[in-house]
């Protein structure tokens, strides 16, 4: 009897050691993955990026722990519990374990409660989205009083099939979005046709632009550089060409740009989709049906399609 207990204890002891080693290894790998996860994301160029990346790293860590925990157990089973050839006997007939089942209901519940509390707090810290006001489509876009504090704006972000146009408070039209670094800029997001999405991966921010509504939006760039602005909501034939650059500059250069650009004569802005459509017409208009691209916007600052972007 005594020896049996001792043997049982010994077995328990060794399995406890194995479990501890496995858990420690898992924790180490999970933390490493969380640490690496920062490198999977673009440059952090806005105040939101920091929060989003931290949340993502947190989720990567927990996710890796759960993934390796589950698949590690599966691997263990596959190595040590394989039935020998021609052995068709039954395994240990465990029907369930109420305690265990309650634990694995409660623990994930607490975990998701924790994660959602964390992300709710991030949501409240960011507060990029202002208000969404419906208006009579086709009529003039109404002015929206923005309650939140911002340093610069409102810049009208006008999206079309398929080009972008930015209108500054002093009347500058531009094909690229120039923003002052470390200042909270405010936008009115407007579309003239279908749903588009204002998405700057380096800012970790995305906001759909809904026809018939004007949406106010604020963000603070925190890094100087050239970042890609991509339409992220499918908007028709040349959707993938509907991109432009966001140029974040120091306050000084930004205001100099504002002052100088206002003197420039309006000319045709960036419209790669329009060029592609012209090429298609030249080649015999083959392919399936599409609406005609919007005409080139008339802008003071054309910018450059060839500009290299940081992310």
């Amino acid at each position, binding site marked *: 009897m005594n020896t049996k207990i001792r043997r049982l204890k010994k077995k328990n002891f060794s399995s406890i050691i194995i479990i501890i080693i496995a858990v420690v290894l898992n924790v180490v790998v999970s933390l490493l993955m969380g640490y690496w996860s920062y490198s999977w994301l673009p440059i952090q160029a806005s105040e939101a990026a920091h929060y989003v990346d931290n949340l993502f790293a947190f989720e*990567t860590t927990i996710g890796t722990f*759960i993934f390796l925990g589950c698949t590690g157990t599966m691997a263990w*089973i596959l190595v040590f519990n394989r039935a020998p050839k021609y052995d068709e006997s039954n395994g240990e007939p465990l029907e369930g374990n109420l305690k265990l089942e309650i634990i694995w209901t409660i623990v*994930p519940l607490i975990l998701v409660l924790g994660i959602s509390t964390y992300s709710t707090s991030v949501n409240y810290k960011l507060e990029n989205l202002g208000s969404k006001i419906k208006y*009579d489509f086709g009529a003039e876009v109404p002015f929206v009083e923005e309650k939140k504090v911002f340093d610069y704006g409102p810049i009208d972000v006008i999206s079309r099939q398929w080009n972008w146009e930015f209108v500054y408070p002093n009347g500058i039209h531009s094909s690229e979005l120039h923003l002052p670094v470390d200042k909270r800029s405010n936008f009115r997001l407007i579309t003239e046709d*279908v749903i588009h999405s204002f*998405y700057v991966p380096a800012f970790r*921010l995305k906001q*759909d632009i809904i026809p018939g509504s004007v949406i106010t939006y604020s963000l603070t760039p925190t890094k100087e550089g050239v970042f890609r602005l991509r339409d992220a909501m499918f908007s028709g*034939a040349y959707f993938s060409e509907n991109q432009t650059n966001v140029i974040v500059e120091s306050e000084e250069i930004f205001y100099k740009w504002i002052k100088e650009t206002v003197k420039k004569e309006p000319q045709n802005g960036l419209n790669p989709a329009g060029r592609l459509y012209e090429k298609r017409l030249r080649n015999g208009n083959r392919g399936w049906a599409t609406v005609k691209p919007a005409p080139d916007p008339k802008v003071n600052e054309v910018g450059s399609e060839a500009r290299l972007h940081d992310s």
Partner: protein
Amino acid sequence: MTIFNYDPRLVKTKNSYPKGPNDWKRFFSFNTDAKVIGIQYIVTALFFLLIGGLLGMLIRGELITPPSDLFDPTVYNGLYTMHGTIMLFLFLFPILSGLTNLLVPPMIGAPDMAFPKLNALAFWLVPIFSIILLLSFFVPGGPASSGWWSYPPISIQNPLGKIINGEMLWIIAISLSGISSIIGAVNFVTTIIRMRAPGMGFFKMPIFIWTVLAAQLLQLLGLPALTGGAIMLFFDLTFGTSFFRVEGGGDPVLFQHFFWFYSHPAVYVMVLPVFGIFSELFPVYSRKPLFGYKFVAVASFGITILSLVVWVHHMFYTGTPMWMRNLFMFTTMLIAVPTGVKVFAWIATLWGGNIRLSTPMLFCLGGLFNFIFGGITGVMLATVPVDIHVGNTYFVVAHFHYIIFNTIAFGIFAAIYHWFPKFTGKMFYEGLGKVHFALTFIGATLNWLPLHWAGLLGMPRRVASYDPEFAIWNVLASIGAFILGVASIPFILNMVSSWVRGKSAPPNPWKAIGLEWLLPSPPPHENFEEDIPTVLNEPYCYGLDKPFVEDEQFYIEKSLKKI
């Protein structure tokens, strides 16, 4: 145990379908036998898997290089729209209906479905709407090309102004598919509620039946909302109404609510039966009872109820107010709880078992492995700040392919292999099955794992061209896609050759417990006919000294045709 001894030569069935000749022609007729309909569904769906897969490979061919050089972007848009539509409405839904048709009546001991004629009607709608959908390739202007979401205003732009256009045919096809699914759902639910074998209370049903019930109830609750939305979209497109048309005061976001109210639960309609398949197969191939049967059974309904209140997580960045985003983030995350219960129960079922790595088990294990991964990225997508960054990027594409192909299709392949001997009466070739698994697993992983990084770096989905920094991930993905294409060869070879000239299958080749395994292979026309067993316990009592049905020996002998 002696009762499992069999001599395969003894069990050749003479005529497995007493009421109809055992010939191939019945598969091309308006046959009302659920087993024939099941096979009709599965074969049709597998045909469309090939077509959808071909479109998928064309997409990956375009995306292997950054510029849009293989097709015109309009063609690319049509191709990816049709790829999604065909895979969902012509492959996944029909194939799951097929498996459900095959399995539900034998598993609950019913002779057939409750409404056999409606059942046949539901199937024959599939070829009808498939033809309508495929015809849209040939109408002027090309097929629908606004994605399978068909969001207005892009879907109602109708550039050529023609009345019959791809989008219109698309809506008609989807509505017919909805009608077919509703007929099927009414049929399945009625059958499960009314036609179970004596003694089979709800807590003695196989888990597959639980999940089918949960999934089909979800279908009944959710699908009409999409049908309503589709009717309004059709009116906007064809008759110029303005439910969603902004110029007339409509609201395009309203459609998104209708769409996702059904289309998010639709994923659970597809994944729940696959959870059922996992729950059936793990006990068989690890020779152990299903761990926590009641928890696993009830968790299906937890998923059903929760999945009806999560749809706004597809709309976190459409201007949804903060409180709504937080609320739906929370409900979405709650789904992880019942899902987690199932995953842990499966792993506990494997624990300490006697694992047999046959082809169905390999697909199950691969599917579970991928599902854990896809589930974790799903929780990441549920959190608002992360979703605002990666939503509508390739991260989402990778995530949902991990669920929809790497989990659901893996489960479907597992089910096809597992029940192939039962319903065709032939054994498949294990070696070819393993080759199929290896190629599918490698191809699927290579196809969708790298795309997560493309999405994290900010590559939007549905693009025909992209910035060169995403090239590496796309090249890997394209190679994976082509490997997946190759993987279909051993599968087709295996299925066709084993059905034509495979070894005859015994009634219970896997030594599984379950009413369907007490029938001969293939089962006779009305399954148990006038002698339906009385069920005593749930079908997972491996190694437990619990009888499954009254007088089990009699049914085993009967299935072996010794009586």
